[in-house]
């Protein structure tokens, strides 16, 4: 990726949050990041309402057969380059739902994933750590 693009991406990453068939816990922890205890808005990380504005896509939950098409479409609509972070054990591997009849594969089978934050649910600190590691890796590339 060109240098200026990485600079644009990582200076103030705007985040879009996509919940597939999730249990809500990771989603709440993501919202928790924005509230006074952690307050990541200090660093310019803002949760946006449209994928068209996003630099980072946070995905949670396992993918089921009904929403797989919608997820592909959302990813297609996103302006590239976009960084995808899989949050929680379900998004990384499918967790205990992988044996279910509605399971359609973990996220990296559907769309490219750049970072994984495992845990059920991961602590907000772990999520910050994951994003920081991703940005550091991109900058050193």
């Amino acid at each position, binding site marked *: 990726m060109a240098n200026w693009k990485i600079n644009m991406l990582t200076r103030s990453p705007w985040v879009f949050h996509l919940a597939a068939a999730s249990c809500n816990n990771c989603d709440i922890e993501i919202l928790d990041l924005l509230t006074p205890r952690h307050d990541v808005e200090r660093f310019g990380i803002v949760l946006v309402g449209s994928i068209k504005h996003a630099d980072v896509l946070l995905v949670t939950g396992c993918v*089921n*057969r*009904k929403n797989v098409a919608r997820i592909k479409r959302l990813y297609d609509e996103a302006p590239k380059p976009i960084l995808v972070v899989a949050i929680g054990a379900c998004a990384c591997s499918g967790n205990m739902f992988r044996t279910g*009849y*509605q399971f*359609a594969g973990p996220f990296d089978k559907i769309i490219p994933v750049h970072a994984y934050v495992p845990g059920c649910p991961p602590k907000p600190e772990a999520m910050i750590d994951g994003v920081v590691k991703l940005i550091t890796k991109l900058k050193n590339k």
Partner: protein
Amino acid sequence: MDSKNRFQEKFQKIFSEYTEVRKRIYATIPTASLREVVGFLFHDLTARFIIASGFDNGKEIEILYHFSFDSSGEIISLRVFLDRNKPEVDSLVPLFRGAFWIEREIWEFLGVNFREHPRLEKFLFSEDWPESYHPYQVPPDRTNRDPNAPPAQSKLKFD
């Protein structure tokens, strides 16, 4: 006289089985009199409808309608047995709205046809889900399964 005894007295003749264990009552009733029994429970005794649950035991399809007597904490489950080849039962939606979703769900999961249900159509499954496949139904090759036989492979394929 409390609700449970009133219910028991009125329908004693039609129960083919009646058990009471630890505040949970299970009563098997004929499919034809379902609406009458439920109507009495729901409207006259003001029992609260909790949910219905379907179960395929390999020979017949069972549907349990769970009601709660909130004043005493007892739960009464009405059980009906349906023919496996053509499962059909009266819908409860004309009696109360609470049965609307669960009947759609059982129709989808077990293939039970609810007569007079206003809208039996896809509810939880994806659009490409085959109409004839009901995951909670025991597959035909397993109804009289030899216990030593290897487990049946899934025949359902998606791309």
